[in-house]
């Protein structure tokens, strides 16, 4: 257990110093999973032998002095919508129940090059559509802080695995809050990078113009270190951005003096839980006392972000998910009458209710006669939302607010009313629409003992400001984590 208490960076340092080995770390992780995952269900696929073999290989390279980086030998969990060569990748859907990719996602390759060792694949909402990890075809994941509650979603398996020490860090993806919200609900750090920072090659697409891969970690130092490894220019992703400023760990500096922080009044209105509000404002106060310049402002357009997002994301999903047709990979229905009937039956049996709901909405808003009124209108409002953020970042370095209106809801409470579940995305979703980076850092617990997340948002390409502010806050806050 002692080994498992290490952060990712601490573990790599211990391995480097010969105090531990990559194999010991993987063995400890696998034992922990065996002990805990029966009740938590953070993982959907684990290949013990492959994980131990990969750990052994990493250790040999460390011993030979080939691997020297800050993540060498560290076990990592991968969200199941990221392709892993030779390892089942299901998107938590029946339609990909038997899909074994022939290649790995660029983000996974970058981690492996840095010496991180893949443990297995984590549970998620089916095709990343959901906020609770309850729409998975392979059973819900439970919140390690309280097993009666959801871990959030869609990267709920990754967040739960980090929180319960079933890995040292994990990868998630964030289309409307799917890294930051589960990080908040599980009391871990989660960062969604600026759009284009991490290659989406090998990420099974949901809403391509919004999707970004990012880290879920035990602390801000790990977060910056992992992001530094993930952020590379990739010609295989046409939206990949060439950045020169990816030395994110250089921003791990405890200093916010003069940092201008704006608090949007529109993020603290109706619907926000009082305990969440109190914890988030206390975090703002702590940063102010440390020298940040904190003031309130009106961001505007906040209430339009959710309808804009669900129009665009559903439209892109309906297009992206056309490829699942029972021909090239995945599930195919057993009985059918002709090609079109095969497509329809395969998809109807293979997709779950939430995925079908979004595909249909997307097909509708893109259909002739409705395209201008819905899809094009949403793209115009997206431009207005981006402009509102541009105006805010002309005045502030950082926007500070809650991640979600409440702490983790109870299992089974969310899916009966989809629209109500969508409203829970109100503070995270506009960040994706505007392509901005955002981070979730634990900032307290409510009276039920469930974690509360602080969200910091920066202008495009300003991850360093995020990391510096988050790191400073983390130092002020002190240790945060679960008792075993």
């Amino acid at each position: 257990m002692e080994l498992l208490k290490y952060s990712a960076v601490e573990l790599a340092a211990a391995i480097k110093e010969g105090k531990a080995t990559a194999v010991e770390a993987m063995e400890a992780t696998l034992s922990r999973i065996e002990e805990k995952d029966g009740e938590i269900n953070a993982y959907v696929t684990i290949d013990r032998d492959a994980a131990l073999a990969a750990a052994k290989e990493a250790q040999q390279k460390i011993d030979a002095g080939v691997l020297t980086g800050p993540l060498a030998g560290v076990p990592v969990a991968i969200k199941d919508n990221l392709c892993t060569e030779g390892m089942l990748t299901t998107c938590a859907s029946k339609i990909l129940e038997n899909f074994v990719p022939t290649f790995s996602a660029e983000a996974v390759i970058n981690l492996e090059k840095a010496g991180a060792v893949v443990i297995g694949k984590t549970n998620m909402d089916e095709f990343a559509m959901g906020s609770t990890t309850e729409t998975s075809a392979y059973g819900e994941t439970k919140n390690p802080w309280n097993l009666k509650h959801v871990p959030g979603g869609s990267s709920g398996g990754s967040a739960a695995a980090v929180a319960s020490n079933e890995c040292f860090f994990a990868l998630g993806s964030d289309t409307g809050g799917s890294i930051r919200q589960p990080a908040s609900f599980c009391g871990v750090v989660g960062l969604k990078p600026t759009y284009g920072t991490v290659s989406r090659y090998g990420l099974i697409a949901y809403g391509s113009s919004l999707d970004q891969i990012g880290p879920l970690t035990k602390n801000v130092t790990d977060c910056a270190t992992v992001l530094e490894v993930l952020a590379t220019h990739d010609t295989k992703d046409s939206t990949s951005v060439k950045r020169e400023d990816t030395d994110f760990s250089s921003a791990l500096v405890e200093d916010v003096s003069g940092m201008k922080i704006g608090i949007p009044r529109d993020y603290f209105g109706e619907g926000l839980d009082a305990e969440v509000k109190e914890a988030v404002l206390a975090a703002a106060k702590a940063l102010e006392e440390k020298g940040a310049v904190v003031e309130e402002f009106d961001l505007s357009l906040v209430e339009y972000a959710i309808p804009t997002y669900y129009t665009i994301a559903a439209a892109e999903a309906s297009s992206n998910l056309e490829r699942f047709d029972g021909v090239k990979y995945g599930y195919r229905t057993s009985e059918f009458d002709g090609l079109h009937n095969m497509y329809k039956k395969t998809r109807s049996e293979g997709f779950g209710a939430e995925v079908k709901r979004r595909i249909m909405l997307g097909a509708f808003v893109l259909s002739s006669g409705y395209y201008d009124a819905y899809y094009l209108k949403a793209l115009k409002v997206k431009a207005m939302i981006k402009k509102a953020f541009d105006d805010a970042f002309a005045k502030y370095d950082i926007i500070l607010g809650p991640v979600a209106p409440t702490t983790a809801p109870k299992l089974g409470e969310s899916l009966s009313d989809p629209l109500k579940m969508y409203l829970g995305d109100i503070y995270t979703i506009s960040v994706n629409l505007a392509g901005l980076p955002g981070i979730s850092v634990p900032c307290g617990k409510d009276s039920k003992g469930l974690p509360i997340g602080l969200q910091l948002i920066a202008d495009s390409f300003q991850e360093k400001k995020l990391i510096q502010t988050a790191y400073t806050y983390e130092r002020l806050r002190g240790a945060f984590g679960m008792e075993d």
Partner: protein
Amino acid sequence: MANIISDETIDYVGILAKLALSDEEKEQAKKDMGRMLDYIDKLGELDTTGIEPMSHVFPVQNAFREDVVTNGDESEKTLKNAPGEKDNMFIVPITI
């Protein structure tokens, strides 16, 4: 509910989305979609005259590359994932 989704609309969406819905699913879909569209109609409150639709947040240009094959022949591995394959090809139902 302002948006009433007709049976014809749901059938049409089913064709576009390539989904075969049961009667029960159709009724639920009509309700769900009507409710979502009512909510999305909120965007109508905003005057978007003269605003350019934004597909991407950054000016994205075509990312050209030379037309050179960089990966090897992976047909065998690829076909292993197919529900049906024969002679290095995917099997599909008769199409004509």
